[in-house]
């Protein structure tokens, strides 16, 4: 027990933000599904790279530019190994999960989506995995189909077979919903889709944080996630794509280094992955994925990984038990098997506005999200116009969960 405590305090010392305060209280940061705090290693890397590796990448014949390019490409290699992609050409740097999904929705659909076709999405998607598909569908006169969730927040995988009709040309799945925190059974859907020759994109924005991802084992055709949600810089995203699809898709944006030759009339494009990286990328931010993913590995492997996993499971049991004891509470995402529940807890208390709860919690040093959480259709499907969400990262503790519950109870006393 003492050992676990020591490991956790050692882990926390890697994240300087966790030692700061908010409204005069020690910060209890529980908005990790929105963004995570950065490790010292990431922070030191970024400030160092801004001095010692700051030159534009892939362009110039001088040593400093080589250093920048090396760092950028080293991060690409790190991403590749982190998600076990076959080759570096599978890894495209974007500006975030949203940009990664937009890239596929735009390029893939331009080539493969026709009038009368359909895109299958999930009912628990956030806006970034809904709106890009709507835009793509509208351009050609295609339509959107929705795979529903049940009352406990489980994806209705059993309906996938019947929803995957011949009109469906691509499926956009969510590994873990940012509201429900439930691990979706996507493996089965991918299998069914592939049997019918339909490719699948997986939004891993939340999923990549809490579990090991192996894109080859998962067999998804595209996988999207953000650096800032896994201890890295903001404004950097990753798109993994199977080479076949990436080769067949037209470029998304034009300009910068994504070309081979350009005349005023015609351009031939650079080979993968640069074909999809128009303009100067956020190269320092992207390069910081190397220390960021090393941080992620440090948090999930070996003795540290075991201790944090144990703590995470304890947090999930504790939160589900304590929250369910609050009168008039409605918790979203309550799978019977708590192994499927990630430490993301969204709920409403009848008669109390989520924003009010968040404001009182803020005064006690607790940072949580309230509102629609960029998932308006899902929140509305619960008959709500907002919800409160506490989302934990591996560096959060059971003690913080306990403090959160105490603060919540005091807030409810004030508000009810």
């Amino acid at each position, binding site marked *: 027990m003492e050992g676990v405590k020591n490991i956790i305090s050692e882990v926390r010392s890697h994240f300087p933000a966790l030692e700061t305060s908010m*409204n005069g209280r020690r910060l209890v940061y529980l908005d990790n599904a929105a963004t995570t705090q950065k490790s010292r290693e990431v922070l030191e890397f970024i400030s160092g790279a801004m001095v010692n590796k700051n030159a534009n990448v892939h362009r110039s014949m001088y040593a400093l530019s080589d250093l920048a390019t090396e760092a950028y490409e080293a991060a690409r290699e790190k991403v590749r190994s982190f998600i076990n992609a076959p080759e570096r050409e599978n890894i495209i740097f974007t500006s975030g999960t949203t940009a990664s999904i937009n890239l596929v929705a735009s390029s893939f659909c331009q080539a493969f989506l026709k009038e009368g076709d359909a895109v299958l999405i999930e009912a628990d998607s956030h806006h970034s995995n809904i709106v890009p598909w709507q835009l793509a569908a509208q351009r050609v006169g295609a339509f959107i189909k929705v795979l529903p969730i049940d009352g406990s927040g489980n994806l209705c995988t059993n309906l996938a077979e019947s929803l995957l009709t011949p009109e469906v040309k691509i499926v956009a799945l969510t590994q873990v919903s940012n509201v429900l925190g439930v691990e979706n059974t996507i493996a089965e859907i991918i299998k069914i889709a592939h049997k019918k020759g339909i490719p699948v994109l997986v939004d891993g924005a939340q999923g990549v944080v809490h579990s090991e991802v192996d894109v080859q084992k998962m067999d998804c055709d595209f996988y999207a996630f953000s650096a800032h949600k896994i201890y890295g810089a903001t404004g950097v995203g990753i798109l993994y794509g199977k080479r076949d699809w990436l080769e067949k898709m037209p470029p998304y944006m034009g300009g910068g280094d994504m070309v081979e030759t350009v005349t005023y009339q015609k351009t031939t494009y650079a080979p993968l992955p640069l074909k999809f990286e128009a303009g100067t990328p956020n190269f320092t931010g992207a390069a910081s994925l190397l220390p960021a993913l090393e941080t992620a590995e440090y948090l999930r492997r070996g003795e540290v990984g075991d201790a944090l996993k144990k703590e995470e499971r304890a947090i999930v049991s504790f939160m589900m038990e304590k929250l369910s004891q609050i009168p008039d509470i409605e918790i979203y995402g309550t799978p019977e098997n708590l192994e499927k529940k990630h430490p993301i807890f969204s709920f409403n208390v009848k008669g*109390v*506005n*989520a*924003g*009010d709860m*968040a*404001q*009182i919690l803020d*005064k006690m040093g607790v940072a949580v999200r*309230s*509102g*629609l959480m960029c998932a308006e259709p899902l929140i509305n499907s619960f008959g709500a*116009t*907002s919800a409160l969400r506490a989302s934990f990262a591996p560096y959060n503790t059971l003690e913080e969960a306990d403090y959160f519950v105490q603060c919540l109870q005091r807030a409810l006393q*004030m*508000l009810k």
Partner: protein
Amino acid sequence: MATIKEIEAQIIEEFSIFDNWMDKYQYIIDLGKSLPVIEESAKKDENLIKGCQSRVWLNCKEEEGLLYFSADSDAIITKGIISLLIRVYNGQSPKDILDSDLSFIESIGLKENLSPTRANGLLSMIKQIKYYALAYAEKEEK
């Protein structure tokens, strides 16, 4: 009838007794709970100001050249602050409302509630109050 400045001064005076945030917020919450509920007929979509966090309804009436507001919100802290705004603005002339700057919200330590990032509808509500004032001021001129 007290002026906007005078009512603001009263409110600042009232809030000066609170030496901790909890009492202050409890007071605002209680104000929110006691704000007369807007009549259902006025809670229509055209009076709705939608934010990500909460929704606000605002209705405005004119009597003998003075404006009267009623409002509601599904968030109680927002509603409490609304009740302060209504106390300041009710029965004032359109011109005085247009000239006001509402410094009292900052003085009583609630400035963060007007931050655009909070998306709680308050900022839009103040804007809407001023639009009403502007509309009635123009009507008077005609």
